[in-house]
């Protein structure tokens, strides 16, 4: 069992200083709009991932008008007590500690405390660009494969260097081909291994999502997912070679694993173009549930599940089904937010699980 017991938020978003104790496995959080429900979930997410699910910079996380912030949690993992602390200093320098030991690299933390967030804007995963889907896959793979995140960070750094070189070359009308070849070699080294990881992963993940979709939607809508990558047909080195002229002309790198996507189709047509609202939601939950199940299977224990405003998204029947699956059939910690305290309470009573309500 892995779960949070106590959390202290200092100058984090709307919280100046507040602490919460979680005594049950199922935690309902209720409060009006703007009361800080999402922020509380994000604090938990932050401690699992060393960063927010939503905001890009730490400056956005610090309570307006204050300098620095701190998140601290007591938790339980495999029957052992643990402690996580994150401090963002006045100068926005970040420190992260697990059991009082400071991390040299934040990437070492990823995967030790797995969590899955489901938030209202996640429909972007279905309707948005490929970047959102890559982000989801990368977050998941970073937790599963040690080293994945480091390779990905390295790949992105080298990619930036390569693009800068191409830009400078276009400006000065002179390219240092030796340097480009070195960067290509460094990029390929990472690109090829990342592709292998993603390919191995997709072969298991995609059937799981399709199966989850059927169970959530209650019927088979012929939803077809495929892992799309330029590396299916050529190695990273071949791609860079083939695209060199074009890359030089456009001053950016047009091929590589940074273009990967998960294509979504239904009955042979592009999913987002023809799917109904209900079908989109079903696919979103299928993706998230598969993420949850994959983590559980890989880690050998259940990840923390953070459900933000899901009541607004699903009808009562589907909602009950979903909650039954994640609260009753699974034994992990679940946080659920809602504006209506009574609706939350009623849902938990229907499920007949021990629960705790936090009212903001």
């Amino acid at each position: 069992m892995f779960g949070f017991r106590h959390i202290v938020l200092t100058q984090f978003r709307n919280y100046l200083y507040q602490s919460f104790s979680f005594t049950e496995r199922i935690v309902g959080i209720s409060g009006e709009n703007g009361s800080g429900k999402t922020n509380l979930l994000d604090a938990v997410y932050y401690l699992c991932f060393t960063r927010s699910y939503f905001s890009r910079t730490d400056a956005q996380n610090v309570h307006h008008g204050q300098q620095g912030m701190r998140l601290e949690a007591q938790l339980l993992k495999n029957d052992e007590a643990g402690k996580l602390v994150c401090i963002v200093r006045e100068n926005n320098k970040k420190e992260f500690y697990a059991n009082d030991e400071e991390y040299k690299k934040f990437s070492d933390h990823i995967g030790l405390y797995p969590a899955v967030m489901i938030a209202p804007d996640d429909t972007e995963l279905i309707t948005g660009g490929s970047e959102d889907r890559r982000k989801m896959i990368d977050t998941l793979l970073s937790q599963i494969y040690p080293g994945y995140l480091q390779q990905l960070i390295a790949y992105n750094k080298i990619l930036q260097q390569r693009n800068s070189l191409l830009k400078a070359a276009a400006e000065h009308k002179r390219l240092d081909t030796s340097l480009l070849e070195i960067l290509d070699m460094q990029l390929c080294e990472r690109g090829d291994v990342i592709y292998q990881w993603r390919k191995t992963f997709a072969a298991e993940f995609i059937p799981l999502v399709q199966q989850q979709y059927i169970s959530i939607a209650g019927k088979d809508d012929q939803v077809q997912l495929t892992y799309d990558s330029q590396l299916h047909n050529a190695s990273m080195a071949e791609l860079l070679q083939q695209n060199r002229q074009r890359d030089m002309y456009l001053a950016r790198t047009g091929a590589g694993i940074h273009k990967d996507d998960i294509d979504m189709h239904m009955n042979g047509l592009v999913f987002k173009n023809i799917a109904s609202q209900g079908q989109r939601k079903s696919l979103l939950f299928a993706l998230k549930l598969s993420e949850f199940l994959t983590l559980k299977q890989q880690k050998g224990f259940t990840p923390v599940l953070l459900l933000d405003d899901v009541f607004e998204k699903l009808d009562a029947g589907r909602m009950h089904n979903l909650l039954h699956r994640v609260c009753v059939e699974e034994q992990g910690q679940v946080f659920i937010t809602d504006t209506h305290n009574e609706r939350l309470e009623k849902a938990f009573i229907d499920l007949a699980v021990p629960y705790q309500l936090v009212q903001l």
Partner: protein
Amino acid sequence: MQLPSSLLESAVNEFSKLPGIGKKTALRLVLHLLKQEVGEVQQFGDIITRMRRDIQFCQRCFNISDAKICSICANRLRNQRQICVVENIRDVIALETTQQFSGTYHVLGGIISPLDGIGPDQLNIESLVHRIGEEQTEELIFALNPNIQGDTTIYYIQKKIKHLPCKVTTIARGIAFGGELEYADELTLGRSLANRLPVDSYISNR
């Protein structure tokens, strides 16, 4: 900060331009100088001025120097056929402190990073390649920070001297990948210099 004298204020402003020095610390330093004899402060100022004015960069290795050629290059007891490539002068000082190295240095003046606008042309790379050919260097030892740009720089230089019969090694990575040379303790730094590796093998072993 309200100061009663504009002389004081401009002195404080100058001190606070130094790295790691804020206004408060600057004031403390200036007030300390005020307590000294005029002659002493004069000497302090003169030494700083002379340091900046008279210091040169070694024409051979780009280390700081009092003459055209630095004391390390000029020392005939040191192995002139061995060149340790470093990013900056601070690294020379760190490596010299270990007393483990008796060859010569070459200060690149930075590291290849197109993102920061630094290409090979901005660094002392051409002079290095020239030097290796001229001096019949037997071994080139890279002591660069273990990160991606460090690797890029190593590969690039290695490629430029492929035609020369010079052995290329790099300091062993006792220092964590992503760490900073400057902050490594003397012992680690000394040991990793002693256990340097051929560049080919550390790439595949990582």
